[in-house]
């Protein structure tokens, strides 16, 4: 059953890396304007799920719906144009393009012709990027690259953004600014799927939390539910 306001829906998907069975009959949905956090230890399937939703690692079984339309097996380019933005682990900026070029590359009207996000708008949120606009991608610091990737994803005016480990290895102040940006994006009505480890920040940001264990959903609930069950947190996320 696809809820009418789901922007993303993975229906009973099985995804493999070669013979490795990573996602096992997974059902995952994201509502329009909803922020969902994706939690779980390494190797449990978080990145694979994002990649399956994006069409980069298509599932072998099951179906993927974007905005209510069946996009199973569609190429990543098509899924991106259907309104899905991607902020990958490792950032995926183009090292041999300048900041300005990285942004221009992605600039596009969203589904339905929306243009909520512009280059100037991105530079407003990330003034550092404006300062560095002519620098090559590989001349940026980790935090700046992260800002660039987020800005780039926004410039395609997506309905939903998939964000994988955006605060990894960044200084606290930079992290804070990124969380601030995510809150801004959420306020503007863009749905977010965010993978991260910082539970407290996620408690503030996300409407719903999904914990993956060995390719299956082990827990799904609100921040309240998680706060009330610390043993679940330790068991599924800790040691």
């Amino acid at each position, binding site marked *: 059953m696809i809820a009418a306001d789901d922007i993303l829906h993975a229906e009973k998907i099985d995804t493999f890396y070669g013979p490795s069975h990573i996602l096992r009959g997974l059902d995952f949905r994201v509502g329009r304007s909803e922020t969902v956090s994706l939690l779980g230890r390494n190797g449990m399937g978080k990145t694979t799920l994002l990649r399956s939703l994006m069409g*980069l690692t298509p599932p072998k079984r099951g179906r993927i719906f974007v905005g209510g339309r069946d996009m199973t097996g569609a190429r990543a380019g098509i899924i991106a*144009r259907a309104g899905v933005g991607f902020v*990958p682990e490792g950032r995926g900026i*183009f090292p*041999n393009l300048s900041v300005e070029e990285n942004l221009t590359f992605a600039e596009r009207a969203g589904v339905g012709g929306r243009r909520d996000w512009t280059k100037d708008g991105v530079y407003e949120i990330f003034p550092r990027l404006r300062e560095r606009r002519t620098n090559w991608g590989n001349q940026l610091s980790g935090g700046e690259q992260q800002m660039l990737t987020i800005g780039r994803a926004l410039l395609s005016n997506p309905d939903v953004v998939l964000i994988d480990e955006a605060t990894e290895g960044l200084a606290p102040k930079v992290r804070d600014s990124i969380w601030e940006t995510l809150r801004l994006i959420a306020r503007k009505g863009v749905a977010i799927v965010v993978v991260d480890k910082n539970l407290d920040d996620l408690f503030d940001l996300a409407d719903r939390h999904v914990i993956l264990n060995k390719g299956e959903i082990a827990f799904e609930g609100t921040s309240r539910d998680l706060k009330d069950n610390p043993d679940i947190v330790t068991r599924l996320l800790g040691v």
Partner: protein
Amino acid sequence: MSLALIQILNGLQNGLLIFLAASGLTLVFGILGIINLSHGSFYMLGAYMALTLTSFTGDIFLALALGAPIAFVFGMAIEWLFIRHLYNRDHLQQVLLTFALILVFNEIQQSVWGSHPLSIPTPSYLSASIPITGSLSYPVYRAALMLICLGLALAMVFVIQKTRVGRMIRAAESNREMVEALGFDARILFRLVFAAGVTLAATAGILAAPVESAYPGIGDRVLIVSFVVVVIGGIGSIRGAFVGSLLIGLADAFGKVYAPQFSAIIIYALMALVLVMRPAGLFGRA
């Protein structure tokens, strides 16, 4: 002394022409990841096409204006028909398919133009010579050729650095997956890049037609030299192809004059030397 100067000019002219062909090859390698043995055939077809088009239009540059678009469309067709099936195949299959294409192209060339060397004269308005020293002069056409090649090289740099397509090419080279994830279809890009490579090779063949006769084996020579240049310069590097081409052009020119028996061997020795010192080429990524 002045003989050496002539050789330097010859070497540069030769090198720039090689660069045109080799740059197409390195682009196809770097972006598409394909070994294309038929690359030399496109040079050859360009050279022969120049003969036909020149007799048709009466002028080599008009021939170029017609020939380049023809080559581009031809390149798109070849990519669509054959090359795109090779992207996920192993090296052996790529080698075989493109080798088979050589056989087919050679046969087409034989049927249409025959096996005798053919040539066309340099255009009358460029057939004078520039005096360099008291006794030696350099043909104007060759000088024009160098300028045209340099111009095309600069145009290439411009396209790659300043245009949208160039941006996509650079992006695809570093992160093909991200290009897709940002909403683009890499397949169309590949078709364009392959067609561009074919056009560059054919253009080189057309431009060279007035200064060297076209004969059936001409494609082989260009292919091997292009490969050597790409290995020396580094796969995917236009800059490397430029440096490598000039190096080879000069080595070849001087080799032919001072050690004619070994001029071919020198080129391979150069390649071996570079491979030993820098396995990824002078400007290549490891």
